[in-house]
């Protein structure tokens, strides 16, 4: 039998103290980017797990390639663009997003339970995960750094218009705002409004206009 995981209070090897090696860098500065200490730590962890026989390095490479090359916001852009030109697809997307997204071949990890949120002139949707970094991977790929960071997670639910201003976005007068905090395994995809001046465009051309941020709700789409 193996030990039960899940109790990390004081008394565990790492609980209740702040060691220099834990922070990596001085307080007030976010450790990580370009941080050589963390690079060495991860390298050591990988070789340890390979040596113990728990991890196959080739699988790591495949995971990285998947999320760098194959799974990203172009998937979501495809979904959104199709919903603009095909009213029946749009209806299916708004009724059962998981199934509608699966029609296009997208699904899986962190997209098991999808909900699509339709932006309208009256209502603008914004998605956040205040507690961690929940994000719809199959349609948007890996979350951007800002989505996982304290400034966005703390402020999106309290002052979403202030957050939008950081993205250079101002909503029109009369557009109310609804913020969705992803606190469960449900993942949200914002369906932005189709930009004006795109009548007759095909799905591929429309998809090229759809930005990742517009599908999180931190962007809106301008006329091309």
């Amino acid at each position, binding site marked *: 039998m193996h030990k039960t995981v899940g109790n990390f209070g004081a008394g565990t090897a790492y609980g209740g103290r702040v060691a220099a090696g834990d922070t990596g860098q001085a307080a007030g500065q976010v450790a990580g980017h370009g941080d050589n200490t963390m690079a060495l730590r991860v390298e050591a962890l990988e070789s340890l797990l390979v040596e113990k026989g728990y991890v196959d390095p080739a699988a790591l490479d495949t995971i990285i390639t998947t999320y760098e090359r194959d799974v990203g916001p172009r998937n979501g852009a495809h979904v959104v663009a199709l919903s603009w030109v095909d009213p029946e697809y749009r209806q299916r997307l708004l009724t059962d997003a998981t199934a509608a997204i699966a029609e296009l071949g997208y699904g899986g990890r962190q997209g098991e339970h999808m*909900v699509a949120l339709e932006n309208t002139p009256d209502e603008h949707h914004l998605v956040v995960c205040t507690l961690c970094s929940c994000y719809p991977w199959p349609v948007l790929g890996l979350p951007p750094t800002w989505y996982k960071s304290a400034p966005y997670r703390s402020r999106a639910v309290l002052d979403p218009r202030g957050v939008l201003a950081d993205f250079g976005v101002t909503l029109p007068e009369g557009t109310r705002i609804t913020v969705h905090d992803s606190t469960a395994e449900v993942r949200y995809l914002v369906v932005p409004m189709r930009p004006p001046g795109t009548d007759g465009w095909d799905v591929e051309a429309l998809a090229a206009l759809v930005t990742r941020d517009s599908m999180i709700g931190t962007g809106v789409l301008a006329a091309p």
Partner: protein
Amino acid sequence: MNGAADLGGMMGFGPVVPEPEDERFHADWERRALALTLAAARPGRWNIDQSRHARETLHPAVYLTSSYYAIWVQGLERLLVSSGLVSAEEIAQRRALGPGEPARVLTAAEVPAVLATGTRADRPEHRPAAFAVGEPVRTVVRNPTGHTRLPRYARGKAGVVERVHGVHVLPDAHAHGLGEQPEWLYTVRFDGRELWGADAAADLTVTIDAWESYLEPGTREGSPSSA
């Protein structure tokens, strides 16, 4: 728990810094950290709720000064040690001090199917839902020392059920080896002023996804004093 991960409504972190769509990683170690975190879960020694709890129980000063992948790395080290797959000495010395246990290892060939399948959190409906769409509810006030997905800012607040998602695994139990204890899951919408007071924008709505045990029946008026 009331940890540093529960960030909703905190102040002082400065502006959000947007980044381009193709910027997925900022250092090569972040790629490896992502992949290691996914691959190391394959032996099945912990679940997603235990992973989240391992991260949110980092010391607040550590959590708030670590980049997200650095949080993941530290969470992974804790999971490896608490599950017994690796010893604390091995983490500290950065080398194996003994052979590994037999474990299911993720192969490169399995990766596409594993990622494309995911892990569903819904379970069969074992009893009727207590609440229906449009029904007023109030979130409970609770400060558990263990894992919960009810954020501090949304405790004790009056809202309305917006969606009924079905029956989902309860993180509060699942994070602590207490089984899945599945419950009905709802999207609940709150008026911004119910959450933040009179200074909040009048046209702000916030939704959370809440398990049934996070909710009590509300009143039609929905005002805090009427409960």
